[in-house]
């Protein structure tokens, strides 16, 4: 086994060269054109292009009006992050739940409930933020554990348990708040949602006369570094896969995809640099996304969750403790719902009985638009995030168009249906 280990480990500079030459071979060995590859992996790229197309659509339609609005203005991009952070954060947990073959309908109510608890603790009982936040996360974990217990160990369908949870925690939210709104919060709690990363790097860079107003250097540099990192990590994974004879994207598609993503990142960084910099929620979101992508794709725990969703009985007979893992996915979901609940509450600067209403649907829709299978066993974090952004961009764009909530719901519903139909069609083809 030792030799095996070495070949697969990190590529030295010399080996990189070998990988490079083999790329060409891999391509011809695959013998497939870029178009054919795209066609077979339509789903993966379809979502990315759908997101791109939706953004461009709103840019065009809002920009061409009589009194044009810049859809991609720094303010609006910042807004997009602030508005969608909690959906994305919950989508990370929901992906795990759905991959494991379950569903969680209670996340909206749980978010509202923990938001209310946070308000109670900080505003009414004057708890400091550093104590209230972990306490709320613990409450979320407890709620997740309570629901997960019935689902995992008593085999009660998750749909039923979390439907009950949805009602119970909405009711408890009303009870805690007694029908009032509790707020406002002290600034350190508000920063959960409205904070920005200070421009630490900007301080080190001397004023440049070329700029009318100094941009937020941190935002720009972080975006450029992230873009480079994505390309480098992609290249390494690609050459490793080639080395092991896996099918990889054709060269052209690889570069096109990565350059589009990198360019989009730098563009967003540039725009954010022109406003108040990187919102802290964007940072927590990005960190969580990377962690969850890593857990799902590269750890034994992640692999086991896919296995129980793919074939529960086979997973059990392979020595996987399916009950405990199912339980843990719900605990995890509870924690993320609590985090999202606090962010929403901080953003509204008040805990309200109606907070989080319908969130579960946005979150679940994001995961399914992102390509997860209803029956479990498949779906990716990247997909769920793109799915969440598709929903978020549509929400934001339609509101800016001045569309009524009625039309918005109809269109969102149809987009969800279309995405899943597209999935099924692709699969049956």
């Amino acid at each position, binding site marked *: 086994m030792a030799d095996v280990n070495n070949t697969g480990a990190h590529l030295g500079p010399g080996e990189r060269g070998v990988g490079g030459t083999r790329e060409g071979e891999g391509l011809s060995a695959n013998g497939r054109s870029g178009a054919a590859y795209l066609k077979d992996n339509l789903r993966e790229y379809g979502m990315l292009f759908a997101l791109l197309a939706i953004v461009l659509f709103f840019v065009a339609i809002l920009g061409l009006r009589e009194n044009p609005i810049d859809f991609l203005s720094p303010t609006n991009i910042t807004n997009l992050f602030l508005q969608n952070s909690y959906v994305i954060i919950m989508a990370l947990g929901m992906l795990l739940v759905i991959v494991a073959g379950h569903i969680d309908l209670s996340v909206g109510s749980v978010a509202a409930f923990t938001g209310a608890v946070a308000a109670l603790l900080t505003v009414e009982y004057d708890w400091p933020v550093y104590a209230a936040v972990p306490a709320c996360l613990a409450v979320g974990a407890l709620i997740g554990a309570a629901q997960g217990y019935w689902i995992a160990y008593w085999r009660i369908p998750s749909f039923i348990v979390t439907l009950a949870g949805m009602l119970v925690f909405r009711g408890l939210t009303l009870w805690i708040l007694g029908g009032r709104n509790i707020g406002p919060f002290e600034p350190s709690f508000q920063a959960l949602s409205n904070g920005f990363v200070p421009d630490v790097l900007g301080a080190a860079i001397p004023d440049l006369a070329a700029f009318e107003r100094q941009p937020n250097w941190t935002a720009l540099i972080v975006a450029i570094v992230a873009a480079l990192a994505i390309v480098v990590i992609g290249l390494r994974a690609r050459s490793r896969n080639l080395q092991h004879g896996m099918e990889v994207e054709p060269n052209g598609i690889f570069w096109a995809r990565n350059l589009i993503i990198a360019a989009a990142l730098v563009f967003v960084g540039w725009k954010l640099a022109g406003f108040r910099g990187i919102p802290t929620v964007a940072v927590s979101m990005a960190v969580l996304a990377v962690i969850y992508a890593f857990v799902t794709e590269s750890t*034994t725990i992640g*692999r086991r969750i896919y296995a129980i969703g793919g074939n529960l009985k086979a997973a059990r007979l392979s020595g996987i403790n399916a009950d405990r893992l199912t339980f843990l996915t719900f605990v995890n979901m509870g924690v993320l719902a609590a985090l999202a609940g606090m962010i929403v509450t901080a953003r509204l600067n008040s805990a309200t009985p109606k907070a989080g209403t319908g969130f579960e649907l946005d979150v679940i829709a994001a995961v399914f638009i992102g390509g997860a299978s209803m029956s479990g066993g498949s779906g990716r974090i990247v997909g769920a995030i793109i799915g969440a952004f598709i929903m978020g961009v549509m929400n934001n764009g339609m509101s800016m168009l001045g569309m009524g909530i009625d039309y918005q719901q109809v269109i969102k519903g149809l987009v969800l249906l279309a995405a899943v139909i597209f999935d099924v069609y692709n699969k049956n083809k």
Partner: protein
Amino acid sequence: MTVLLEMQGISKTFPGVRALDNVTIQVREGEIHAICGENGAGKSTLMKVLSGVYPHGSYDGVIRFAGSEARFRGIHDSEAAGIVIIHQELALVPLLSIAENIFLGNERAAAGVIDWRTTYRRTSELLAKVGLREAPTTPVGDLGVGKQQLVEIAKALSKNVRLLILDEPTAALQETDSQKLLDLLLELKAQGVTSIIISHKLNEVRRVADRVTVIRDGATVSMLDAHAGEISEDRIVRDMVGRDMAHRYPDRVRRPGEVLMEVKGWKAKHPEHMDRDFLRDIGFNVRKGEIVGVAGLMGSGRTELAMSIFGRSWGRDIRGRVAIGGREVDVSTVPKALRSGLAYVTEDRKALGLILEEPIVRNVSLANLPGVSRGGVLDEAREQAVATRYRAAMNIRTPNVFQKVMNLSGGNQQKVLLSKLLFTEPQVLILDEPTRGIDVGAKFEIYGLMNRLADEGRGVVMISSEMPELLGMCDRIYVMAEGAFVGELTAAEASQEKIMSLIVREHEKQEQVEMEAAHG
């Protein structure tokens, strides 16, 4: 004799694969026609072309049915023409009654209101025809697989079938049920029903078939006629695999060593019938380098025994002791059983064994993820190397290890499943029907592998419904009936007759016990 069905020059290509290459088959009115071929030879594809699953235009060649050219656009068309396929996986609704299943989608109804009287009367007639003595109102889920098979045939007959196609009809049946089914086929033939039977069991083919078409690698190899005395098992096998198979079972020098695993006083209750023990005080042992067989009819409790030992995966209120290598071990959960050096290879590889949507590489590593990871982080390079190594060692025939398991043939799937459990480095393997539903060539390879495992000093327990296979492979055979071990035979003394007589004796004893209980 007139020709009922003629498929001429049928070719069908999938991207990158030529599944059928100019296949020709001719079925005469009123005959039983067998189609034989290894898994992956193209039998299923051919049947899908015939039934319209692959519609007219998606293949080359001509189908003539009952005198005219058939251009089926879907199953509906072929069924309307009188062609009915009964698949290996039965398509019955367990919670509905026999009558409801038979007329499902074809209800005896007036203006949408079901005419139950006619439904039940017709059902009774059909059940009589297939020799099934059950009330039409019995839920199908309450019937055994053999009887469900008969319901399927009754359902086919209800549709005025002209050509009945049975895909591996006896694969899941025990010996007596298989015999009954074959008798029924012969009887239906006497009544003028034409049928095609696809089967791996060559003794059955020899028994019922008038003619046999052998397919290999997507092409017709030969057409053998029973009435010309051309059908023999050796001949069919030769045509199927393209070479002579001198021995069905590979040779092995038998050198059993010391006792490796010992099970004592094993008892368990059925999860739904908790009133008495389903597994009754079972004791057995396996030696190093030994292949031990477990013979018994379906329902005798063989799978239940294996699964209850393997991490209590079946049963309630399980008692008994297991020792491996002279030390008592805890096998109360699957991870503990695996750690103790025990592995169980399920009989139902699709439902219990594999994750069909996942590639080979992920299936092979599943039972031993720590073996391909460090600190909980997967080392994909190592994982791929492991899978690639097993692909070579087990001769899994795929271009690479990234193929989804659902696209593999039965034999290859079985090898993936075996690889998965071998990667846990077991000392004792319990193989439950390891050759079910796989072709002759793959069977031979599995047998070879079992010998290799024994030669490495492991203990192998083989559960099988096919007695010749047990007799050909095992050093010792335990006979199981009614949840108990009722006899133990050495390779030298074992025979099909002896095994059957042990089973029959136990059945009679149990019947007597039950009668006495009923009267007392």
